């Protein structure tokens, strides 16, 4: 085979591709949103919904309202493969795009959050992590550009214990109960251990932690210990990816009742329950948003995007847990821009302006209704000191092939979470020699 004839076109194409990549297309009256998600790799089933859902929402805004106050939204996709180094690469590649640069950044991975938030602070680009990310970042005094908004992992966990308490018939009934915490053996999985232990002490229940090694294709050893030896009253599932359906199947195999298993929102989507088949029936999961297509905002997406054949995803994925999560992410992103425009005028806004807007963002019932998302997401309010909002959590149960809401919005226990967040933030500030800014 002659190398030259074959290789030259390849090299030429490569050189062309490299040299044309990463161009900014500067145009006025546009607001640039980066979309990094993962369409490949072990987590692609969820990742494709995240990217697609956000884009669908932005498309709908452009189509229905002509953007935000006349400013069109633009975006560019970036494939991260759920890998930290690719997320950094995406961040650096896209940060100068659009007339005002990148508006805000969703890393869509906890590891990626840690890798970009310091750069983002320097570049003045707010990093929004809804439902994941650096929990300590809820303290806005130390982390001005990090927004783990709505509900962080620790808050979520307190709501979960309250939910379990309510199922038992009162928080005092938790005394002497046994809870097994089955978690992904990673930084993400281990994050709730401190708050669980603090609550165990407060309410007098017992908690035991069972790490599951990545990727969790076979978990028998853990489930035999749980099912035959520990025999807990409740199980908290804190998994990710293929670990979740496997856990449900293993639970069925040791005859542990699935309606005593409560998952975090990364263990509670159709992608987690469908593969488990009948083993998932009755399983409960937390959520910071609801599933379903009945909300006006989703209907608008169908009307303005899908009915015109512009949708990013197969229609049947609309209204799924991950899809609706992405729509919530899109709404918070767009509302941050709108808020910033209210403050500085109806023009494309910069990252720094969005950061200020986020710190005054008040997603009250009226505003959520205006978005057509009543019931889809809880109310929350961010301030300079509180970048989380401590929003309430809803619990849903997998029944007959779909998620059914079984609880109202359950408030989180900020009296427990906030001091721990502040302690973690203070520790970080001390390590890095940061003087927390004053928020008064």
């Amino acid at each position, binding site marked *: 085979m002659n190398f030259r004839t074959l290789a030259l076109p390849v090299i030429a194409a*490569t050189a062309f591709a490299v040299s044309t*990549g990463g161009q900014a297309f500067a145009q006025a009256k546009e607001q640039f949103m980066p979309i990094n998600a993962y369409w*490949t790799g072990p987590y692609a089933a969820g990742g494709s919904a995240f990217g697609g859902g956000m884009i669908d929402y932005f498309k709908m805004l452009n189509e229905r309202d002509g953007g935000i106050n006349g400013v069109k939204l633009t975006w560019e996709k970036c494939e991260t493969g759920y890998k930290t180094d690719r997320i*950094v690469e995406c961040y650096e590649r896209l940060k100068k795009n659009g007339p005002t640069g990148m508006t805000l950044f969703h890393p869509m991975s906890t590891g990626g959050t840690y890798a970009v938030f310091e750069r983002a602070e320097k570049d003045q680009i707010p990093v929004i992590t809804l439902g994941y990310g650096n929990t300590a970042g809820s303290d806005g005094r130390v982390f001005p550009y990090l927004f783990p908004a709505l509900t962080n992992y620790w808050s979520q966990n307190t709501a979960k214990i309250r939910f379990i308490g309510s199922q038992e018939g009162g928080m005092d009934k938790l005394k002497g109960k046994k809870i097994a915490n089955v978690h992904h053996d990673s*930084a993400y999985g281990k994050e709730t251990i401190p708050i669980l232990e603090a609550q165990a002490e407060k309410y007098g229940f017992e908690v035991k932690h069972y790490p599951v090694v990545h990727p969790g294709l076979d978990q028998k050893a853990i489930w035999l210990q749980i099912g035959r030896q520990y025999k807990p009253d409740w199980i908290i599932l804190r998994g990710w990816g293929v670990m979740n359906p496997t856990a449900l199947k293993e639970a069925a195999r040791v005859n542990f009742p699935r309606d005593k298993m409560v998952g975090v929102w990364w263990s509670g989507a159709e992608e987690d329950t469908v593969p488990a088949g009948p083993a998932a029936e009755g399983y409960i999961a937390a959520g910071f948003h609801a599933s379903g297509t009945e909300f006006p905002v989703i209907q608008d997406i169908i009307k303005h995007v899908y009915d015109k054949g512009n949708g990013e995803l197969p229609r049947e994925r609309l209204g799924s847990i991950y899809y609706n999560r992405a729509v919530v992410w899109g709404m918070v992103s767009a509302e941050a821009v709108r808020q910033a425009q209210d403050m500085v005028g109806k023009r494309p806004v910069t990252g720094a302006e969005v950061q200020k807007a986020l710190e005054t963002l008040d997603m009250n019932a009226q505003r959520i209704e205006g978005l057509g998302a009543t019931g889809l997401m809880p109310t929350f309010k961010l301030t300079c000191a509180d970048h989380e909002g401590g929003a309430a959590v809803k619990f849903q149960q997998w029944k007959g092939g779909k998620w059914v809401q079984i609880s109202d919005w359950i408030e989180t226990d900020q009296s427990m979470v906030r001091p721990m967040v502040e302690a973690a933030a203070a520790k970080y500030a001390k390590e890095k020699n940061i003087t927390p800014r004053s928020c008064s």
Partner: protein
Amino acid sequence: MIYREAGQFKTSYAADEAIFPIIQDRWFVAAILAIGFIAVPILGNDYWLGSVFIPFLIFSLAAIGLNILVGYTGLISLGTAGFMAVGAFAAYKIATAFPWMNFLVVLILAGIVAALVGLVFGLPSLRIKGFYLAVTTLAAHFFIEWVFTHFGWFTNYSFTGVISSPPIEMLGFVVDTPESRYIMTLSIVVVLALVAKNLVRSELGRAWMAIRDMDVAAEVIGIPMLKTKLLAFAVSSFYCGIAGALWAFVYLGTVEPQAFDINRAFEVLFMVIIGGLGSILGSFLGAGFIVLMPIAITNGAAVFGAAVPADVLSNLELIIFGALIIFFLIVEPFGLARLWQVAKEKLRNWPFPY
């Protein structure tokens, strides 16, 4: 005609032992260094410096480390990512325990820690060979990964287990702009590459190659197996450890075991094989190929890929990447470094056919 050694006489032993005995090579290397140190920082923007050249340089370093083991000594290892993680965590522990320490000293100490760990996990290589050895180095990888995930001491008992790396300070100068990070990485990589180039030409390097070509024969002619193989593991891990520390401190800005998962080990192995086994230059070429290719495919596809759905596009990237690996192997199984050699041979006679 362009590339000819005719007329270049070696008149001293020193000249005979030079790293680049031919003047054209010396000019070429000097030109590359000039481009690297002067042209790139001036012409490159933040993205190119911070997200393309720095990863390329760091991976080149890791590839040199692995090449010493695989290419020069013939011991296949998949423990690279583990040793990189050791370097990263060692650097984190040292830098947080002694915040006043110069970053270069931290790096060297981290490299030494990685070398010691490599030494321990190199022990089975005395008895186990080939692919079997590759899989036992996976034992090292998974064990190291588990240790860093499970013992809070390594992360200074952080609540979350992901830690952000401390700022890099050298002689009162904070290295934080892409330019300064790039120059620092480039300097480290150039020095270490020169050291490696000399090392493989030394007695030790020749002993490594003897073992690679036939270890029983090497033992018969009196090369000490234990010492030579373990030194290969130690030196290789030293390079990987420094690469890992740079990856965490200079590129990611965060230290986490997931950044050094098993795919990372495979990635570095691809670089070594695609670049060329037993070639320092090949390590750079291989790293360049693996780092640039996905970015080029993504950007290339983005140019005319608006009509293709995102998930298809991303998977097409995988297909193209896989096909290119196979294509290059079929065209030139001995790696990009061999292509370079062939090119030099051609240049020597050019414009005459032979």
